[in-house]
């Protein structure tokens, strides 16, 4: 059992939780993830660790309510327990050689981008952060990013906050108009966003790392469900990743594979919502 020590609603569908998990907190590095299961009948879902504190033995997760499990997770409160949490899983992000980075976060992917920004900033690297959201109400971690970035650009699709446009517009401007030279671009967010960031950086020949988040069960290399194609080879995101060279990832296949259970997920989500509604009426 893993106790929820703090719960903070970042906005309607995105929540932060601080969890008591000393074994994981002792080891976890930026880029690694955990797998959790809420109850005996629950599924196992991977979530990247957004922050950690080795002294207090806590890890922080930030998740968006996208399906039935995240919906149920969001129903839990401070002092409630999560049945199973295992980690840290995956390889840590390779950040130590980076002197100047463009860090791109999309939506809830910003939760994963943030610890990277924090780490690089702590190592005195130059961090240019570009974060993108659909609209103002979905913006998260704005102040946190501003504190650890040398340059910070926020974009929204509808212009309701920051610049109107896509993260790729802002990145292109930094590279082309401002003539910024980056050692590396790190992109974390929806697959489509990462795909287009990579398309852009490939043109300018800038090394780009992406963080993949496919469907998986065990997270230790056992199921092979998280396989993606990198440079024509089958790789397991859970043990070979989750970070990969974005210019080598076959995004189209990854996008299709993430849709494998869409119908089931929708059904489960509706079922959970109905159940919760009924129990709230009682």
């Amino acid at each position, binding site marked *: 059992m893993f106790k929820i020590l703090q719960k903070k609603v970042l906005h309607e569908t995105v929540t932060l939780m601080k969890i008591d998990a000393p*074994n*994981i907190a002792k*080891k976890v590095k930026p880029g690694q993830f955990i797998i959790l*299961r809420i109850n005996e*009948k*629950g*599924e*196992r879902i991977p979530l990247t660790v957004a922050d950690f504190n080795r002294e207090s033995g806590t890890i922080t997760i930030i998740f968006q309510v996208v399906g*039935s*499990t995240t919906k149920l997770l969001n129903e839990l409160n401070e002092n409630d327990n999560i*049945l*199973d*949490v*295992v*980690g*840290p*899983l995956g390889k840590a992000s390779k950040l130590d050689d980076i002197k100047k980075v463009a860090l791109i976060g999309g939506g809830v992917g910003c939760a994963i981008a943030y610890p990277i920004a924090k780490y690089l900033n702590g190592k005195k690297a130059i961090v240019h952060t570009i974060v993108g959201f659909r609209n103002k109400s979905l913006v998260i971690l704005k102040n946190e990013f501003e504190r650890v970035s040398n340059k910070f650009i926020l974009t929204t699709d509808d212009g309701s906050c920051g610049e109107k446009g896509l993260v790729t517009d802002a990145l292109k401007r930094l590279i082309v108009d401002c003539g910024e030279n980056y050692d590396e671009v790190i992109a974390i967010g929806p697959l489509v966003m990462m795909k287009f960031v990579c398309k852009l950086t490939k043109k300018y020949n800038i090394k780009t790392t992406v963080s993949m988040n496919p469907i998986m*069960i*065990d997270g*230790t*290399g*056992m*199921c*092979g*469900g998280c*396989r*993606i*194609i990198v440079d024509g080879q*089958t790789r397991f995101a859970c*043990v070979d990743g989750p970070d990969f060279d974005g210019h080598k990832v*076959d995004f189209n*296949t990854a996008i*299709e*594979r993430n*849709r*494998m*259970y869409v119908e*089931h*997920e929708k059904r*489960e989500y509706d079922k959970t919502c109905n159940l919760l509604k009924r129990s709230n009426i009682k």
Partner: protein
Amino acid sequence: MPNMSLKKTYMPVQNPNERNKNFKEVALGYNEEQAINEANRCLNCKNKPCSLKCPVSINIPAFIEKIKEKKYEEAYNIIKMSSSLPAVCGRVCPQETQCEGGCVRGIKGESVSIGRLERFVADYNNSKNIKNSYNKIKKNGVNVAIVGSGPSGLSCAGELLKNGFSVTIFEALHKAGGVLIYGIPEFRLPKAIVEKEIENLINLGANIEKNVVIGSTITIDELLKQGFKAVFIGSGAGLPKFMNIKGESLNGVYSANEFLTRINLMKANEEDFATPIYKAKNVAVIGGGNVAMDAARCAKRLGAENVYIIYRRSEKEMPARLEEVEHAKQEGIILKTLCNPVEIHGDERFFVKSVECVEMMLSDPDESGRRRPVEKQNTNFKIDVECVITAIGTSPNPLIKNTTPDLNTKSWGGIIIDSSTGLTSKENVYAGGDAVTGSATVILAMQAGKLAAKAIIEKFSLN
């Protein structure tokens, strides 16, 4: 009076057309009368050819004698002296190539059904809830860490506990049992039986830490620093192999590991469990081992109309237990032997549509002693399926190797050990089971766990 019947006493099984729609155990086991009847077929040979072929050297004629005398608890204790998981082995051991393969009765007629008798004794005792007599063992104060709660780890733990050691078993998943839980389906090995065996170990004093990935959450070196005098690595061979043919990324292609884990561990087949599984009308399973049989029979039980087993050799070379192949065929699984997949085709939605195969023929025997399959030119054909499950083996997980620099492994990942002790290249670190051999059987893993336990006992009991 010995029973001179040439045939084994029949063991009742669920009707094939009923059982292929449920996940309940297929083989129902002997009752007392049937067990005694079968026990009476044993000639109690003095040289015990059966025991000689048992990887854990159970005194088989002795426990069968006890069945004849209706002393089932004594029979159980005889088995327990050599095996820590009797109810499991009675069900999943390849008896035909081990104990029963050595049985004198098998020369003319069928061998004594040693597996069924072992199962009877174990089930009888488990149902009577007989407490084991090891509770008063004096602890020697030596802590041993066991990595993985599968058959090798459980067997190693059992031996150590009986000899006064303190044991902590680390399990990466949320449930203990390893392949016995995530791999072998309920209808072949009911999970209640595995849980019972694990409960027995906990009663002996085993401490089980779930949700801990050794090599990540804690490393082997840290375990040794934490005060564990020895470590046994029984982490299995968890990494599924793929065929590396076109179309393996399509939705609807599973490794057998994933397919079986979704069902056995996550209960995706049950309505009120959250984990999804893709239910297809037509399913192809690639491979000819027990895992392939398990996957095919699970697919059938999920409601598939046509389930094909695609195997590149002939039925005779299939590595699966004879009984599993027979059961699969009875349940309507279609064997497509001498046939090899070359590509998986998908539809516009990125889901599997068919599997393209090529016919094979057998040429001269290869190093495994089995005749080598060769492709027949221009014999390609397609089978319409919406799901393809690959059951072509697994290799050891590199997590421990990658985080334990002084642990020597073979190029394919198997941990190198001294075959008489299980000792690895690292002091006080032992290994056994699939982590050493690559995918093999439950009983061989148990043998390896026991062997390492013996070495640990010898080394640390002296001090």
